């Protein structure tokens, strides 16, 4: 029995033993980024680890903070990102990126866009962590094509360098909007970029037990209206579209678009410590993303200790291996348009890959076995 998701619950579900932690002897590192002008406090992290980190070796402070850490209150998202990235990617050097305030009080406006500032950082630092988990997303239709295409190129630059970028798939299910009077699902970017790994969300079947996982109804997923389907996922997507018994009307989505998410992890019912207060039942795919990212950091740790290069851009290999090393999630559907036609239901999970939980959630020892060799 448990009263919400803590590091022990996560480590039990994903089969992490007390030995599955960083060695502290490699140049391995990981990072989390959020752009909400939120700050995290090291004291929260220390308190979190004091409360929940007793059963595994861990670091109680971050190695590097990029961006001014304000003296303001800590934000739940910033606290959650760090606390769970350092619980699954335990004892691995961790960077935190958080954007400084936009007005520095001198009448000069950092009118920058925080996410753009992070991209510039990627283009200006030779030595960066291997894994980056990012909680940021916007509706595709609210962004210009020129902006999305250019950001997509920035992700290609990162992939060529062997960086692994993980983005939350979003918390609005398939999304919904009306185009010339007709409802359609609403894809999210950067989740829909073909050059990042997108992470969806699951819940426990019984919220108070460590059981199998089902879809968390908020888990973002669907098909891009901007980026065509990359060749690495064509077979998996075709298989889903040909076999799913619950497909929404085809007018709601673009079946030829980049489909996402690629993987998933628990996104429901987390304990977080923020401003020294333990807070229960926090939910969102910005929780599942650092969890999955920390596990990839652990796999990088083993690869580096074996003299292999880090994982890099994961998707081609992930789809090639057809989700080996992942728990397949086959129950549940995510939310979408509240209308007669689809009645609030978007896509549903199914065997193999699906546009709600991707290939599924990590089974660490099995995933390590499939990814440790180049």
């Amino acid at each position: 029995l448990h009263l919400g998701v803590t590091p022990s619950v996560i480590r039990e579900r994903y089969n992490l033993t007390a030995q599955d932690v960083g060695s502290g002897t490699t140049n391995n590192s990981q990072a989390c980024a959020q752009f909400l002008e939120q700050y995290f406090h090291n004291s929260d992290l220390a308190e979190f680890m004091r409360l929940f980190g007793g059963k595994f070796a861990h670091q109680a402070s971050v190695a590097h903070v990029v961006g001014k850490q304000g003296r303001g209150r800590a934000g739940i998202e910033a606290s959650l990102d760090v606390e769970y990235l350092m619980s699954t990617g335990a004892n691995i050097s961790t960077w935190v990126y958080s954007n400084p305030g936009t007005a520095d009080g001198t009448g000069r406006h950092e009118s920058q866009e925080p996410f753009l500032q992070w991209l510039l950082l990627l283009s200006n630092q030779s030595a960066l962590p291997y894994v980056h988990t990012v909680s940021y997303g916007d509706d595709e239709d609210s962004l210009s094509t020129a902006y999305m295409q250019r950001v997509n190129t920035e992700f290609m630059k990162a992939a060529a360098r062997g960086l692994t970028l993980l983005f939350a798939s979003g918390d609005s299910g398939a999304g919904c909007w009306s185009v010339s009077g007709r409802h359609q699902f609403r894809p999210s970017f950067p989740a829909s970029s073909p050059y990042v790994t997108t992470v969806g969300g699951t819940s426990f079947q019984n919220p108070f037990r460590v059981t199998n996982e089902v879809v968390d109804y908020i888990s973002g997923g669907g098909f891009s209206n901007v980026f065509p389907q990359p060749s690495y996922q064509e077979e998996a997507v075709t298989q889903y579209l040909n076999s799913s018994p619950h497909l929404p009307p085809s007018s709601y989505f673009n079946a030829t678009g980049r489909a996402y998410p690629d993987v998933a992890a628990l996104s429901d019912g987390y304990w977080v410590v923020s401003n020294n207060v333990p807070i229960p039942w926090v939910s969102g795919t910005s929780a599942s993303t650092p969890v999955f990212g920390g596990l990839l950091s652990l796999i990088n740790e083993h690869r580096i200790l074996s003299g292999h290069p880090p994982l890099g851009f994961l998707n081609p290999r992930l789809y090639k291996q057809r989700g080996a090393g992942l728990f397949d999630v086959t129950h549940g559907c995510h939310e979408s348009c509240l209308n007669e036609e689809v009645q609030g239901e978007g896509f549903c999970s199914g065997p193999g890959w699906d546009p709600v939980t991707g290939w599924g959630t990590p089974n660490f020892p099995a995933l390590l076995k499939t990814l440790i060799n180049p």
Partner: protein
Amino acid sequence: SYSPEPDQQRTLPPGWVSLGRADPEEELSLTFALRQQNLERLSELVLAVSDPVSPRYGACWDWGGIWGKYLTLEDVAELVQPSTLTLRTVQKWLLAAGARNCHSVITQDFLICWLSVRQAELLLSGAEFHRYVGGPAETHVVRSPHPYQLPKALAPHVDFVGGLHRFPPTSSLRQRPKPQVAEAVG
């Protein structure tokens, strides 16, 4: 002139309030995304280092004397950096407009400059900067609710200008009510 981002949403996100026109002498920083080169080649390299079916997957490569499976930032810079013509055209255009404290990144494909609101509105025709406050942290930003245009001569050299339309994102994390279960929980 032409508009690099005709399809960028410019409506005010929920929770943001306009504080009126920005002071013409107020300073703001803008990010110019410069046109890159060799993107086809970049795409091939990404697949070569990431796709298990690629004959070069997992191999160690001699990247200009540095052995490794992946490119370094300097390799990427060498591949995608803007052409000399692009760099020169954009710098001349910005200097003529009075831009100051411009700085670039290692890959040279972004340029960040400080300008006064007056200079920025002259440089980016159609733009009109307003001050806004909003979001959970009462963030202050300067944005333009009107679309901007660039001289046609810049079309081959600039992808977009950042800092005009997109507002800081908001968190979608939620604290849900404690789940109820049929059986009593000890």
